[in-house]
């Protein structure tokens, strides 16, 4: 009320004040206007007087031009003046100024006569307006209105404040007090109503919330009274139990409906039901090993919680919440199966799978692992530290690895271990930390592989490589020796041939030749070992070869040693160089004899064996299948392990200095490898030695014929031979030998020289004797060039290199005759004669 009335009163007050001020302003304005207009008129009269005075002088002097100029200037400078006319008494317009004033509406007109001594000179007429007065009036109006408004505002405000203080303030205070009291009461009332509404709202919301929970919860919930009849059932319970609506369940005995039979099919009496017993005990019940039955007669595994509903400490019913745990049970079973599968995998894993705790104690180990450590059962070693099984040299490394893994690293270690029953094994283990779900390292998980076999193979490979490199070295040395020996033997023979039968020096020469012969054999052995000696392999029956050699062997081993042969009944046909195989046997038998200085038994057996794939692989053999196994056993002193390891190395000998070359078994090794075979040795000190030779059996059963030994004396000739040899000594020797036996010899120093000399003596030359490897042009190249001149020219090539390498290198067909250095003069002469005779027969 106060809010509304105050501005209205104030407004009325202001209007009254404004009216008063307006009337006052009107009064003031009309007074001012009168004053202003009067003043303007008076001013105009004064102006006219001034004009009159100003022109009077000029008029007296008859200076009309000045009057005209003055009038014009006066008119121009006074805006309110519209017209000035100076009229002579005769009516002539002496001066006339006019200007139009379209905005003027109030004018005044003045006239004055200029008289001199009673005679009128001119009459001046002046017309002007009240423009200035009007302008001042309009400004005055604006000021008056503004002043009125300002005064009304200031004065009104001041009066209003005073008035209120004096008269209205006490009344207003009373009203305000009353209004405040009413507002407070109102607010209290509103608060109370609001509280009630919000309490109701809260209650309703909570109810809705509970209903929502009950409707949306995945677990089934039902209530029953003390008689066992269902009083409430939520949608999840209906869904789980297979009912459409609550009416189908509510009011019915719930036990008979859903809980009547046990999982095993036996009847479940209501009296025994643990849910029902809940109300008697007041205790909650929980079970997860029972089933509920659906409306369609099927059942599901259930987990339930039952709780008495108490009112004033008296049970009035039971609420049961339950969940279908079929899936959970299935998952648990699947987990069990998965664990079993994993266990099976671990158990059948060929590598050792083990877990060790931080103290190094064994937690788990699979079957393969147990086999490795030679334990019968896991229980035997579980909880034990396996560190002692590791050989002392690796124990610290093993423990370091374990601690490293428990620091979070993974690692690998190769170590040696002695099984619980004493077996030595080389093992390689890879270990990683095994973490639990909290990412803590709880164990070391290790996968360990048995690498014993692998290590053996590696050692064998190493041995093979070593032998190979030694062979290469020996072969190279032997080749150089051959050239030297060729010279010694050649010149020795020539000297001997030319010597008288009774020459006292003859015995010396013979000694020289004998020694050279031994040296030549030595180099041959070296070449054999290094596989640089040619092997003339043919299918031969090993049994036949052994039988043939038996009488020689008997002679070699002497009478103290009994020799026994047990040859297999079947034919053992192998592709072999009969001579080389004979040498193998001779070498082995010689060794056996040396091992049995006080006599003993030597046994040679042959048999046909089929070697398994693994044996082939582990022993570096070329092919699997049938092998001839030749075993040579003696009852000698045997060998220690160190000796066995080095036995096939060239120049390794246990014999006294001078008794053995150290090449015997090396040669055997070389020959057997050349024949794609394998030789092993088994020996223990004092227990004798057994060598086993495996040679691949070939399908062809035909045994090779024995080559007849050529013992005839060399035959000379008269033919002309072109000899090409870059080694001067060898060339001279060869030339001498051939000349001595009647041949004409043309010697050339290299391939180019040979071709030139052939061209010069084309008609005479019947045979080419060329060294294969020569500077400028090889023997083969020279031969090929000469063949273009004479395609049927006969040729013999000489070389110190391995025949198989040579044939590959020079593309020489196998029907071309090659002699390998060192060649004895006799052998050379025989070859020359036989080649010259070819085609003649």
């Amino acid at each position: 009320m106060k809010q509304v009335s105050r501005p209205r009163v104030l407004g009325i007050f202001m209007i009254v004040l404004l009216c008063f001020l307006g009337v006052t302003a009107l009064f003031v304005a009309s007074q001012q206007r009168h004053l202003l207009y009067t003043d303007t008129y008076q001013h105009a009269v004064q102006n006219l007087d001034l004009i009159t005075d100003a022109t009077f002088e000029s008029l007296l002097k008859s200076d009309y031009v000045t009057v005209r100029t003055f009038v014009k200037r006066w008119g121009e400078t006074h805006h309110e003046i519209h017209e000035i006319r100076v009229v002579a008494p005769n009516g002539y317009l002496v001066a006339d100024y006019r200007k139009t004033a379209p905005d003027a509406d109030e004018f005044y007109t003045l006239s004055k006569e200029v008289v001199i001594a009673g005679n009128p000179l001119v009459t001046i007429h002046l017309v002007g307006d009240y423009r200035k007065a009007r302008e001042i009036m309009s400004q005055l109006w604006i000021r008056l209105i503004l002043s009125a408004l300002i005064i009304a505002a200031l004065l009104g405000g001041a009066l209003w404040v005073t008035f209120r203080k004096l008269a209205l303030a006490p009344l207003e205070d009373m009203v305000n007090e009353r209004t405040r009291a009413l507002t407070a009461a109102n607010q209290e009332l509103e608060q109370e109503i609001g509280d009630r509404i919000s309490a109701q709202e809260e209650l309703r919301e909570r109810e809705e919330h509970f209903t929502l929970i009950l409707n949306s919860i995945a677990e089934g919930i039902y209530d029953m009274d003390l008689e066992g009849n269902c009083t409430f059932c939520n949608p999840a319970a209906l869904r789980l139990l297979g009912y459409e609506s609550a009416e189908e369940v509510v009011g019915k005995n719930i036990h008979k409906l859903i809980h009547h039979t046990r999982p095993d099919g036996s009847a479940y009496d209501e009296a025994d039901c643990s849910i029902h017993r809940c109300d008697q005990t007041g205790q909650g019940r929980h079970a997860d090993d029972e089933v509920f039955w659906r409306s369609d007669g099927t059942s599901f595994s259930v987990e339930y919680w039952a709780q008495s509903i108490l009112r004033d400490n008296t049970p009035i019913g039971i609420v049961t919440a339950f969940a279908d745990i079929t899936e959970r049970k299935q998952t648990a079973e699947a987990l069990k199966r998965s664990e079993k599968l994993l266990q099976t995998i671990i158990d059948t894993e060929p590598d050792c799978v083990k877990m060790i705790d931080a103290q190094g104690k064994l937690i788990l180990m699979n079957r393969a692992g147990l086999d490795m450590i030679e334990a019968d059962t896991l229980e035997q070693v579980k909880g034990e530290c396996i560190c002692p099984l590791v050989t002392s040299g690796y124990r610290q490394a093993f423990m370091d690895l374990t601690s490293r893994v428990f620091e979070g690293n993974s690692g690998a270690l190769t170590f040696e271990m002695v099984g619980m029953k004493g077996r030595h094994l080389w093992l390689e283990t890879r270990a990683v930390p095994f973490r639990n779900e909290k990412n803590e390292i709880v164990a070391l998980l290790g996968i360990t592989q048995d690498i014993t076999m692998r290590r053996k193979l590696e050692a064998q490979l190493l041995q093979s490589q070593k032998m190979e490199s030694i062979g290469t070295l020996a072969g190279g040395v032997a080749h150089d020796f051959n050239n030297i020996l060729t010279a010694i033997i050649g010149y020795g023979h020539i000297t001997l041939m030319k010597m008288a039968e009774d020459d006292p020096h003859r015995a010396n020469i013979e000694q020289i030749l004998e020694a050279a012969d031994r040296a030549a054999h030595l180099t041959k052995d070296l070449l054999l070992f290094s596989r640089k000696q040619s092997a003339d392999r043919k299918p031969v029956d090993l049994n036949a070869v052994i039988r043939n050699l038996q009488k020689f062997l008997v002679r070699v081993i002497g009478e103290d040693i009994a020799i026994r042969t047990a040859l297999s009944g079947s034919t053992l046909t192998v592709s072999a160089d009969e001579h080389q195989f004979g040498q193998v046997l001779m070498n082995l038998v010689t060794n056996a004899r040396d091992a049995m200085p006080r006599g003993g038994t030597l046994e040679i057996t042959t048999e046909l064996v089929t070697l398994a794939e693994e044996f082939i692989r582990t022993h570096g053999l070329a092919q699997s299948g049938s092998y001839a196994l030749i075993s040579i056993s003696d009852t000698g002193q045997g060998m220690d392990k160190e000796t066995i390891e080095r036995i096939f190395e060239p120049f390794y000998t246990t014999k006294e200095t001078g008794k053995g070359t150290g090449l015997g078994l090396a040669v055997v090794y070389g020959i057997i490898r050349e024949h794609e075979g394998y030789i092993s040795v088994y020996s223990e000190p004092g227990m004798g030695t057994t060598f086993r030779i495996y040679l691949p059996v070939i399908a062809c059963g035909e045994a090779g014929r024995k080559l007849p030994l050529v013992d005839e004396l060399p035959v000379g000739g008269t033919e002309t031979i072109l000899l090409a040899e870059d080694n001067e000594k060898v060339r001279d020797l060869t030339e001498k030998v051939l000349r001595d036996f009647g041949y004409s010899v043309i010697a050339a120093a290299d391939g180019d020289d040979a071709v030139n000399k052939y061209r010069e003596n084309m008609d005479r030359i019947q045979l080419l004797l060329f060294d294969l490897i020569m500077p400028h042009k090889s023997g083969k190249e020279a031969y090929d060039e000469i063949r273009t001149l004479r395609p049927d020219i006969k040729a013999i090539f000489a070389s110190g290199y391995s025949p198989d390498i040579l044939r590959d290198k020079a593309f020489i067909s196998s029907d071309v005759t090659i002699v390998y250095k060192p060649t004895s003069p006799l052998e050379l002469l025989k070859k020359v004669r036989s080649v010259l005779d070819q085609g003649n027969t």
Partner: protein
Amino acid sequence: MQRHNLFFIRAAIVLITIALLLPVQVAALEKPLILSIHPYLSATEIYKRFGTLADYLGRELGRPVQIIIGSTYESHVEAIGRGEADIAFMGPAPYVRLTRRYGRVPLLAAFETNGSRTYRGVIVVRRDSPVNSLAELRGKKVGFGPPPSTMSNLVPRSMLLKAGVELKHLGKAEFLSNHENIALGVLSGSFDAGALKEDIYNEYALQGLRALAISEPMPDHLFVARAGLPDDLVRKISGILISLRETEDGRRILGSLQKTLTALVPARDADYDPLRKLLAYVEKTGLKP
């Protein structure tokens, strides 16, 4: 095209530079040329009429030309005679007096009004005046110009003299400051008659004037230079004045000097000999000029 543009740009730059430099030099080196004019009209009117000519001369000569108005006809003659003014515009009678007192001065140009080198004076009355002859002016109030004036004083007084009317015969003779006041004085009834030159008469005739008598033609007003002004400058000024008729601007300047002025022509001293005779005649009859 480009070459032409370049030429114009260069020419413009040169001209602008000259235009900028010249006034500075002129202002710095040359004093203004003083043009003196006798007070034959009100000062305002004189400035109005001669202002454009002075400006034009200043532009053409490259040197400012300043107007001074003699306070009297006499002081005007003295100014040019003593060389205080460089050039002067003067009526024929003052010229004759000038030559008589100071000797010959260089002549620049003379007025040619309506194609004539001469002009005439008129004695006027109001159109409704009963006076019809000069003789009837006896006892009347007559307005004259100042004594040195040719057409408002010297010539009409000689005319009245010839008609047998001397000043003493007149009711009242008043000497006004200029021709216009004479006309206005007659028109407003202050005088019965007045003497003035023909072109002023023509100006006011329609307002109610009537010509009572018209004089013999006399050589017109002229421009002279002070003795001692360099010949080339004299020739140059003379040339500028005489060639005014040839251009539109020049003709406009001529018109503003006097409506009837058609040209400025070469002045000849001999033309003023009749005036010299008239002056001698007036002096012989005892009139004070």
